[in-house]
């Protein structure tokens, strides 16, 4: 009798965290084996949000597949769209005009800020700081309004197009965005006043989830999660796309590779984003927003469609069959989304649809490293670790 009791007492406990746990940011399920308060095994289960994006793309034209990209990482839809457009443009060998490039870059950085403030709010909420959450949503709303002003949608924007952007921005938008860029740094200071030095925050984040630079690279980390460990890899610098070559910005890196350093990295990134936005507005040239040199791959201007026979045929073919003269081949193209490096591997067989499309999503890679971060730590730190890799399950499960 006593023997069984002892055996019971000493057994490790297996608990199920998620898929409906508010701190798992969506539908991540972790099976934790714990010994008292210490995690001894952690197994992530993903796939609850699987929608088959890669397969769905094979049945859609390059244009019609874009709304699916909005729904990968739904809090940074603009950056995904831009990534997708850049990939298809590289495949088709076309280049968007300067104005479109600057507007896209601007949008990407707005997305970065919006994604990072959502991350900051929820991460702080998980760890126990409620106020930051409320303040960060105030600014997020501002960005959402700006998105609505430019394209009529707040979250799933579908704004960029292959070869340019959907519509031009208004003067009112540019002024409001500049106002935002002027005021936002003071808001970052507000967040920092609340948590930067806060002793509870420091205790919950410093020295937690430490990963060395070498290990982070080996795990395939990208984005701020990698830069927190001191590696200055950023696709925007190493393989510039759109207007990133023409703007000036720094890539903040951390030292220790713990939760706190990754937090600092993201805060600095927001400041850099503001810098990029300002430069983009100041340098924004006049000109076309859709490339005029690729009539076979882009939609013709609306007024031509009903007057010009050729334009009309292109219009019909582009919309029903896709760009039928797409080159045969394959391409891998990656862009820096707020979570890390989003890669598109597209195989084209010359028809208007991708023959195969593979997405390399940063969240999936980061989730796979959760056991490495969590094993040996306390149960409470699992929450901090999930927050720090900034996982969005829509992108992870695709």
């Amino acid at each position, binding site marked *: 009798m006593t023997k069984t009791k002892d055996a019971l007492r000493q057994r490790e406990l297996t608990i199920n965290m998620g898929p409906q746990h508010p701190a798992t940011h969506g539908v991540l399920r972790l099976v934790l084996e714990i010994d008292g308060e210490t995690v001894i095994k952690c197994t992530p289960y993903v796939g609850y949000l699987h929608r088959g994006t890669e397969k769905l793309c094979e049945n*859609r*034209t390059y*244009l*019609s*597949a*874009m*709304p*699916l990209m909005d729904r990968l990482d739904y809090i940074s839809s603009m950056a995904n769209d831009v990534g997708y457009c850049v990939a298809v443009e590289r495949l088709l060998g076309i280049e968007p005009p300067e*104005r479109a490039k600057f507007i896209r870059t601007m949008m990407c950085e707005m997305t970065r800020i919006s994604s990072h403030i959502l991350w900051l709010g929820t991460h702080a909420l998980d760890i126990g700081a409620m*106020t930051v959450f409320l*303040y960060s949503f*105030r600014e997020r709303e501002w960005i959402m*309004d700006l998105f*609505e*002003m430019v*394209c*009529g*949608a707040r979250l*799933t924007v*579908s704004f960029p197009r292959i070869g340019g952007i*959907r*519509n*031009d*921005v*208004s*003067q009112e938008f*540019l*002024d409001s965005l*500049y*106002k935002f860029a*002027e005021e936002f740094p003071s808001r970052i200071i*507000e967040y920092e*006043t*609340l*948590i930067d*030095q*806060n*002793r509870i925050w420091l205790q919950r984040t410093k020295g937690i989830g430490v990963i060395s630079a070498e290990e982070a690279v080996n795990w395939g980390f990208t984005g701020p999660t990698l830069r927190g460990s001191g590696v200055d890899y950023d696709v925007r610098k190493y393989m510039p796309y759109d207007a990133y070559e023409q703007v000036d910005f720094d890539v903040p890196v951390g030292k220790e590779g713990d939760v706190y350093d990754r937090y600092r990295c993201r805060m600095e990134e927001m400041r850099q984003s503001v810098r990029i936005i300002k430069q983009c*507005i*100041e*340098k*924004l*040239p*006049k*000109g*076309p*927003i*859709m490339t*005029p040199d690729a009539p076979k791959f882009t*939609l013709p*201007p*609306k*007024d*031509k*469609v*009903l007057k010009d026979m050729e334009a009309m045929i292109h*219009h*019909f073919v582009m*919309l*029903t069959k896709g760009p039928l003269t797409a080159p045969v081949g394959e391409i891998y193209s990656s862009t820096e989304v707020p979570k890390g490096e989003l890669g598109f591997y597209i195989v084209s067989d010359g028809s208007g649809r991708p023959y195969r499309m593979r997405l390399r999503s940063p969240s999936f890679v980061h989730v796979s490293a959760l056991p490495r971060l969590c094993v040996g730590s306390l149960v409470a730190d699992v929450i901090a670790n999930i927050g720090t890799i900034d996982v969005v399950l829509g992108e992870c499960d695709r």
Partner: protein
Amino acid sequence: MKAKDIIKRVLLLEIIQGMALTLKTMFTKAVTRQYPEEPRAAMPGFRGLHALSKDEEGVMKCVGCGLCAAVCPSQCIKIFTAQGLNHEKVVERYEIDTLKCLFCAYCVEACPYGAIALTEHYEYSDYSKESFYMDKDKLLENWDKYMSGDKGNEYFKRFWKPMSIDFNTSEEQAVFKGWDNNK
């Protein structure tokens, strides 16, 4: 340095700073909205409920070419055409399942005639599924309800006209015009 740290720790300085900030925020204007009582106006060009547009005589503009149905990523538009009395094409049924719709506005972009629009109306929740299945009459009614008068024309002019003139450099394009801090 050490002594300074100890003083900071004992005096809870960073906590007091945080508290001061929240106290200050208490006296600023509320940013939240009492939603159903204070509705929020959508921005022009908002992608909400669909409408089929009418011309000046109140006739439906759609000719039933089917481009919108072809481009629709979620394939939620169904068009049935038939032959009219004078052997012309008439749109018999035009149906949109708004529950499937992504509100991507590709249909608006595809339509060569400007026959379909997304209105600024977004509050149309209901208890039954049927009310989200929009047929031709409902869609035409939406145009009268939400795009009446000049609004419909403005919509196409403001948001869909630029798409057609983008290829020439427009003089009125928005650019940075300097920043005045007091604005």
